[in-house]
């Protein structure tokens, strides 16, 4: 339309304007993670984010850990799975407080889900809060939950090249547990190679070889937990 008198056809080219935003895509998650980390520190709860492929032994390790340490160390668990209450039921059978978070279509836990889980779980002062992430070596890596430490579990049946194939996951790991070492006689798995690959992703990653079922190496895992419990509840670095 003519701007002066309103005659003529409507003008079809619409005026657009550009707006610079510069918004970090993980900012919302990271802000929530910062709030979680602060709450965990204020309440003296050590949060450990456990990540692995499906079936590497996260729940088995937690069941055993809680049964072995239960009298000396208070443990609580947030269980992340796409579906079912199965893992929460396994943890519940040990007597430890547990909350299941079902992510549905989601393939990872995020800081908001953990905030909600922590509210429901209300872990006690001086405890260790284990967060069992969704079994997946890709997606959980990008999402800081507010945890103090990240533990990646690899089992010897998965192949020693995993740290190279999933570098995002391994580059933020504080500890790599090589699980199912009881099966080493039956599979081709070069532990030294696996460790070397992991150290390419994170040069100072700690490594422990364990068997969650037979018990190998668990003493060192418990020492690691006790040490972290003493030195760093909730004070950890950020991860994204």
């Amino acid at each position: 339309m003519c701007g002066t008198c309103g005659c003529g056809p409507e003008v079809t080219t619409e005026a657009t304007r550009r707006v610079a935003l510069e918004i970090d895509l993980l900012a919302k998650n990271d802000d929530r993670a910062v709030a979680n980390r602060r709450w965990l520190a204020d309440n003296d709860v050590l949060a450990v984010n456990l990540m692995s492929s499906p079936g590497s032994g996260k729940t088995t390790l937690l069941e055993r850990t809680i049964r072995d340490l239960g009298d000396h160390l208070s443990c609580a668990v947030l269980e992340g799975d796409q579906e079912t209450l199965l893992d929460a039921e396994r943890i519940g059978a040990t007597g430890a407080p547990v909350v299941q978070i079902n992510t549905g279509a989601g393939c990872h836990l995020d800081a908001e889900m953990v905030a909600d889980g922590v509210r429901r779980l209300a872990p006690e002062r001086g405890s260790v809060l284990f967060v069992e992430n969704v079994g997946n070596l890709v997606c959980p890596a990008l999402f800081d939950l507010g945890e103090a430490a990240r533990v990646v579990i690899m089992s010897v049946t998965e192949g020693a090249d995993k740290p190279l194939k999933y570098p995002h996951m391994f580059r933020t790991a504080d500890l790599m547990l090589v699980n199912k070492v009881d099966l080493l006689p039956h599979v081709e798995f070069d532990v030294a190679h696996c460790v070397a690959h992991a150290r390419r992703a994170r040069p100072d990653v700690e490594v422990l070889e364990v068997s969650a079922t037979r018990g190998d190496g668990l003493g060192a895992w418990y020492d690691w937990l006790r040490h972290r419990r003493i030195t760093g509840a909730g004070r950890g670095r950020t991860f994204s």
Partner: protein
Amino acid sequence: MHELSITQSVVDAVTERMCDARIRRIRLEVGRCSGLVPDAVRFCFELVAAGTTCEGAALEIDEPPGRATCRACGDGFDTAEVLPLCGCGSADVAVEGGRELRIREVEVV
């Protein structure tokens, strides 16, 4: 697929920041070493944008590479790998950048 939730956060952030303005174009920066697959973001975008002010908007994705510097031979090169190998065979390579995950700008009516 973490691209779904990241793409959701794009649409959430844009609609929140731009109120009712109709969005014509969104420009993202997804670094080549970020762990996000741009094609998956494009795929998710249509789904997530439907019924919002972002529906029908063009999605442009810049993909800056990482800049690698070999600590063994001093060579520098662009990379899309998180753990690149240098041509000299060394794996002792520092990578800077390439991990950007950002909404740069939008075009609105």
